[in-house]
């Protein structure tokens, strides 16, 4: 019964989300919606890695960047069409995550975080300095608009639909994943890695799996970003960007996919709303983060659970 209800809710949400551009005509707001969609994809994928498997990756922006660079290079230099490039972007990101996994399978906990930070920095520095490949700090410009049969994706509205398709694909597949056998294994690792391995969960394999699946979606988001922005530069894939994605999912509430979306919306709307306060923007964002998290460590999800008094259901405690 509850499952049917959830499916109905998702179908309703999908239908409603496709109607948005016929209500919102303003291109400024549509642009913000597009950013929300893109960061939601990034947030959802990182939530799988961090929120469900407890692998704090601070290099998500690098994988997002790998996706963006793959699409940009394939589209501008090899005349690929967009959809093969989109899939390849995800796969290239997965390839790099597997290389990284060779090292991460040996280290654990905070040392994993260190390696992801270092990887993110290496990616950014190489892209900045390898001018013949990535055009250095200037980046790659003039990425052509994607074409899907006769549909040329060029306006904000078209990109909204494209982003929406990728977003729903991410949301639904990730929801199916976390409710499957794999998702339960991830959660077991999050709760207690040692206990999980004692119960027969192959922790190394599942950690690599969770990491590479999450990274695949980051590659898709990067590919979307490349065609949406038509220009990419290493300065978009910094450590700050990785931190921003983590902030979004923590504000939303870690370990819950749906909660990621309000977190993303809050951060992006706050960024936009504090734009007039230009000089104090970062200060306001920092204050919101600290005050909210000190009061509600589980973010929006924590507030929501308090209101609906379902707290017991989601809180997990470790001794």
């Amino acid at each position: 019964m509850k499952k049917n209800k959830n499916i109905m809710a998702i179908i309703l949400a999908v239908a409603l989300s496709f109607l948005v551009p016929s209500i919102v005509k303003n291109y400024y707001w549509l642009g913000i919606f597009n950013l929300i969609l893109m960061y939601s994809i990034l947030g959802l994928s990182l939530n799988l890695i961090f929120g469900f498997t407890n692998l704090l990756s601070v290099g998500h922006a690098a994988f997002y960047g790998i996706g963006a660079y793959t699409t940009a290079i394939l589209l501008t230099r090899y005349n690929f069409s967009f959809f093969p490039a989109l899939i390849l972007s995800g796969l290239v990101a997965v390839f790099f995550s597997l290389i990284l996994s060779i090292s991460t399978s040996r280290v654990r906990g905070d040392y994993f975080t260190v390696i992801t930070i270092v990887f993110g920095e290496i990616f950014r520095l190489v892209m900045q300095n390898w001018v013949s490949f990535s055009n250095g700090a200037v980046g790659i410009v003039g990425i052509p608009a994607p074409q899907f049969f006769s549909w040329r994706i060029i306006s904000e509205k078209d990109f909204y639909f494209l982003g929406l398709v990728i977003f729903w694909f991410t949301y639904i597949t990730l929801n199916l994943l976390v409710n499957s056998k794999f998702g339960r294994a991830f959660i077991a690792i999050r709760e207690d890695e040692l206990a999980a391995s004692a119960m027969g969960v192959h922790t190394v394999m599942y950690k690599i799996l969770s990491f590479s699946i999450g990274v695949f979606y980051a590659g898709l988001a990067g590919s979307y970003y490349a065609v949406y922005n038509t220009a990419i530069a290493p300065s978009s894939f910094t450590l700050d960007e990785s931190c921003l994605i983590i902030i979004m999912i923590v504000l939303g509430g870690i370990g819950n996919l749906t909660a990621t979306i309000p977190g993303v919306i809050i951060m992006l709307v706050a960024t936009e709303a504090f734009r007039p306060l230009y000089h104090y923007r970062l200060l306001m964002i920092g204050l919101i983060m600290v005050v909210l998290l000190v009061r509600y460590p589980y973010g929006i999800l924590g507030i929501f659970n308090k209101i609906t008094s379902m707290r017991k259901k989601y809180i997990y405690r470790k001794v």
Partner: protein
Amino acid sequence: MFTEVLIVGLSLGAIYALIAIGYSMVYGILKLMNFAHGDVYAFGSFICYMLLVKYNFNPILSIIIAMIIGGLLASIVEILAYRPLRAPEYRNISMISALGVAYIIQNTSENIWSRQVHFFPSIVSNPFVSIFGIKVPTTQYLTLGIVILVVGGLNLFLKHHKIGKAILCASQDIPAASLMGIPINRTISIVYLLGGMLGVIGGVLYASSYNVLSISMGFSGTIVAFEASVFGGIGSINGALLGALILGLLHSLVGFYISTAYRDVITFAILIIVLLVRPKGILGRYVEEKV
């Protein structure tokens, strides 16, 4: 030339050590990656800059005032933003709150001192000395001397002073330490105070040996502190010292002989290799996980 590069590298490593030790101590006690560490020391260095340049204070006095302000700032941050999230299940969340604090401090100092790069005057009058025919800036010898003093003093303090012993106990096991009557909150505040003060010395020495000071030093300082403490084995003071010296040597040698652009890439790659061979850092001991 090699000797000069070596000495520059060692003194750079010594500066890194001052920043990394505070960072590593905090990690050792709370297992918290303090993302705000770099911004605290940058803030303190700016205070020192303001006192030196605007109000013409004596260098030693201004460093001491800056150290006190930096240390106090670090412990205030601890009380407001980290203490409420100290429970083990909020460990990852307190890291994000640390990031929020980093944003707040960074933005505040940006609004006070602007984002541009400032010229920081040298704190010593005689810029170069030559010892055994090797001509090296005085600040670099000064830095090495200060680091030896500080690390030696810190080791003595931790082994023999009551508060130092309390810090060591708390870093082994907080609940057990508090059961033995150690005031945990006060001990942790002292760790933050020490970490902030050491960081400010490092920041001022860096600024005065390279004559530059900017806001972006904060975040890069956090990364350097992080890298250095991981190299040596995070959580131990001597590990942080060793890691920082290695990192300083690597930065100056790679920057001089190979390429400045790829300096960080190469050091990061070496860091990954070190972690592959010794997953807990060079001096880190493998602790068997208990259930």
